[in-house]
Structure formats: C-alpha cells, structure tokens
C-alpha cells in the first residue's frame, strides 16, 4: 500500500484494526494506544475509518451481474437429464473436460487455425469464440476473405459463437432426436478439435462435412442460418458434426429472437447458392 501521506503509520495494521481483524489479539490494544497517543496514528485513523466505510458502501452498490444467457444455456445443456431413448445414451452425458475458451482465444491470436487437440479420448467443449460483424475486425478479416461475406447490414453481430459447444459425435439424428442434440455424444470416444482442424476420427462419414471444419466456412453457414431463420442475431449453443437420417449433417442449436431452435443442415450450408441447406428444423423448448 502506498499511504505515503501517513508517515510513521502502518496502514495495513491500521486497516486491520478498522476492519476488526485485530479483535481479541494483543495488537488490538497496541493499535488503540497508538491511535490515542500518537497524533499521526490518530489523524490516519480519522481518515481511514470513514474512507473504508465509503468503499464498503460503494462496493455494495455495484450492479448485479446475472449469468449471460448463453452460458446458462450451455450449463443447462451440460447437466440436463438424458432423455430416455436418446441415441447412444449409454454413457455419462456430462463431459469430463472442457476446452479453455480464454486460452483458446489467446492461441487463436498466436496461431490462427492451429489445431487444438483436447483431452484425447474424452468429450470436450470447443468454443471458438467468433462473433461476426459486418464491419470486419482484424479477427475475422481472414475468414471473410475467402467466403461470401454475409452479415447484418446494420453492423450488429449476426452470430455469436463465443459460448458454443462444438461436438463431433457422428450421431445419426432423426426427427425425434433432433431436439436434443449433444445428448448422446458420449456414446463413443472421440477426439474433439478446433473446427478448423478435424481429428483423425473424422473419416468417411465426416469427409462430406470437412469443408465446414474451416472456421470461415462454418461462420458463413451460421450466417446463412441466421438469415433464413429471420429471428435476428444467433447465439449458438451447440454445433455437432453428425448425421441426419443417415446423411452427413451439421446440427446447430441456437437461440434467437424467435426462440430456441435446432437445425440440421447439409454439407453445402453457407456455400453460394445453397443458403443454409436446411434439412430439418425443430424448436427447442
């Protein structure tokens, strides 16, 4: 602590006294004596006590910070009960490990699109933390350079994936199970990776989806979903590289102004002329 203006006074000790940390200790009486007998300590006490009280009041007045809806939705998805009959529900539905989003963000800056292998053999969450704006930032300039850039004309973010869960389950969803994406992801072990760097388990069935492993293509796809959904910006909760009724499909769960949805889209999603290539969509309650 600086406190240079209180020469000869141990401000930490005085703060302890003011805060009641010395109650019942020998130092309590010693500091009380110093305050009573030493003008410097007396003056410092006169200033510090009300100032500390003012700080306490100020801290108590800080506004509450409710959990962001995206994170709350992700936690709900992580811990929700496994519905009976969900495909591949034989294993623990809650992931054992999560990808460190903050660390991932830093790595992205250090090495764009460098593969991030996570917790081999276990399920992982991979948030790649991209938010697309029409006025491009340095962050996603690269991603839009290669794609047909689509974004909200008013400059609002169209897609927020900062809290998205990225899965590679290869689950074969049907119309009934589409409303519960990710529920079956632990049925078999996978190595989950950054969407730009598919793991080696992504073989035959995944090859059709491989264009969507690239972040810029995936973002184009999500942008198309946002446009076709017509519910304003999307907050993406989950992306699953999987199948729908036997065909390779990207399963996207999101919330928008028109509610929560799960879409199954084809491998052409986001490419010019294909739009979102939606195969099926169901509301999520």
């Amino acid at each position: 602590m600086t406190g240079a203006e209180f020469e000869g006074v141990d401000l930490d000790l005085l703060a302890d006294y003011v805060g009641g940390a010395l109650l019942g200790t020998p130092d309590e009486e010693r500091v009380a004596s110093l305050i009573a007998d030493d003008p410097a300590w007396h003056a410092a006490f006169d200033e510090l006590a009300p100032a500390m009280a003012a700080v306490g009041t100020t801290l108590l007045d800080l506004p509450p910070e409710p959990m962001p809806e995206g994170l709350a939705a992700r936690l709900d998805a992580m811990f929700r009960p496994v519905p009976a009959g969900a495909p591949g529900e034989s294993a623990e539905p809650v992931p054992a490990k999560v990808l460190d989003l903050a660390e991932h963000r830093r790595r992205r800056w250090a090495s764009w699109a460098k593969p991030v292998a996570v917790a081999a053999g276990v399920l992982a969450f991979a948030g790649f933390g991209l938010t697309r704006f029409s006025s491009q930032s340095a962050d996603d300039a690269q991603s839009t350079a290669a794609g047909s850039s689509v974004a909200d004309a008013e400059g609002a973010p169209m897609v927020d994936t900062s809290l998205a869960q990225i899965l590679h389950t290869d689950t074969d969803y049907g119309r009934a199970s589409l409303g519960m994406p990710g529920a079956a992801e632990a049925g078999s072990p996978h190595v989950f990776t950054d969407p730009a760097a598919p793991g080696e388990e992504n073989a035959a069935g995944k090859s059709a989806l491989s264009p969507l492993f690239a972040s810029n293509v995936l973002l184009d796809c999500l942008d198309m979903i946002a446009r076709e959904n017509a519910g304003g910006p999307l907050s993406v909760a989950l992306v699953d590289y999987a199948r729908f009724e036997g065909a390779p499909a990207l399963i996207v769960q999101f919330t928008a102004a028109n509610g929560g949805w799960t879409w199954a889209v084809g491998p052409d999603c986001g490419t010019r002329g294909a739009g979102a290539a939606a195969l099926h969509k169901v509301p999520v309650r």
Partner: protein
Amino acid sequence: MHYIAGVTFREVSAGVAGAGETAPTDAELIRAHVDGDTGAFAELVRRHRDRLWAVALRTVGDREEAADAVQDALLNAHRNAARFRGDSAVTTWLHRIVVNACLDRIRRRQAHPTVPLPDGSHSDDRPTGPEPAAPLPDQDTVLVVRDALAALPTEQRAAIVLVDVQGYPVAEAAEMLGVAEGTVKSRCARGRARMAISLGYLRGGPGQAGNRGGRGSVPSESAAVVPLPNGHDRRDQR
C-alpha cells in the same frame, strides 16, 4: 416446472418453498444427484448460477475466463458430489470450488504470461479483458470502482468480492476461501484501505482531486470503527 426424483417443485431460491409445493433443499438435490437422479444437479446449478457467475466474474475480471472457471468448477462439483459430506452448506461448497477455479486460473496466468491480445493488454494478475457491466446511471463510477478492485492483490480481491460485493458473512467467506475468519477480515480491510487510497477517498490522498463519481467524500468528523458486514445486509442471497 421440473420433476426430479418424483418430487414436483418450482424454481425457487434455496430454502424458499412455493405454496403447496415442496422445494428440495440443496442438500437433497446433491443426494439425489449422487443417487443417480440426472436432473438434480441441473436444478442445483440453475438455483445458484447467477451468484457463482458474479463471484467468478468479479474475481477473474474477464468474461471468458469466468465462464471457463464456472464451467470447470461445476463439472468438478458434478463429478465429486459424492465427496460432499455436508459439513458446510452446499452453496458454500459450490462457491469454494468456483473460487478455487478462479484463483487457479489467476495463478496459471501469473506463471505463464501470454502474448497480449490485440483488443487490450493485461498484466499477469489483473483481469484481462473488458468486463461490461450492467447499465447504470453512473457508469463512470462503476468502471472506476471496478478498476480499483481489479488492481488489488488477488487474495484481497477474492475476499472483498465475497464479503463486500456479494455480501456473504465473513465466516462463510472464510469457508469458501479455506482460510481463517481473521484472515478474511484482514484481507478485506487491507483491500478496502487500498481502494480508499486509489479511489481518492482519503483527504489529501492521491486521488482526491479526481474523486470521480462524486462518491466517498470523507466526513470531517471522526468515525467509529467500521465492522465488516455480518451478513444481515447481504443482498441477492438465497
């Protein structure tokens, strides 16, 4: 409405039962989870997530780090719920896990400094990125106070977040932090004193001329010793 282990209940704050319906206690939810009820832990999370988030966000000061810390902590709690022996309240146990996850992240950040991000540099200890606060009439004051809080040493910040910001009693904060009550009092007191200086709340202090937000003017009269909150004025709790 949720249905867990055959018990119908509404979303309620811990310990507050809805009229005519039974709200399981936190301890009952933990037991149900350990016994295999797959919905119990989700309900527990829903019940406490806002407070856990607030603690994490204020402690690490970065939304992504806080999200990771909360997620890590809750997965940890989910896996290790069977080890919860009921020596403390469930919410205390959850907070302790979250606080430890936050402190671990801060320590890792200190041990492994990273390349500053283009969107803002950060030191190894202080929060890394913008922490947008909810709109307030006096946003400047909030930002100044937040910065002063972020500048505190980690241990002092964690104690102040629990006691002074979240309003937990010192005894409960001590359990959450795994330290003695006196240590919590000392960390809070020293942190408050540091903030008093940095915010210019002291007459003749370095920030007096710029007592931003117009708060915290120091009374001319001497004040009585100011105890730390005892929990009666706790807000946003249970």
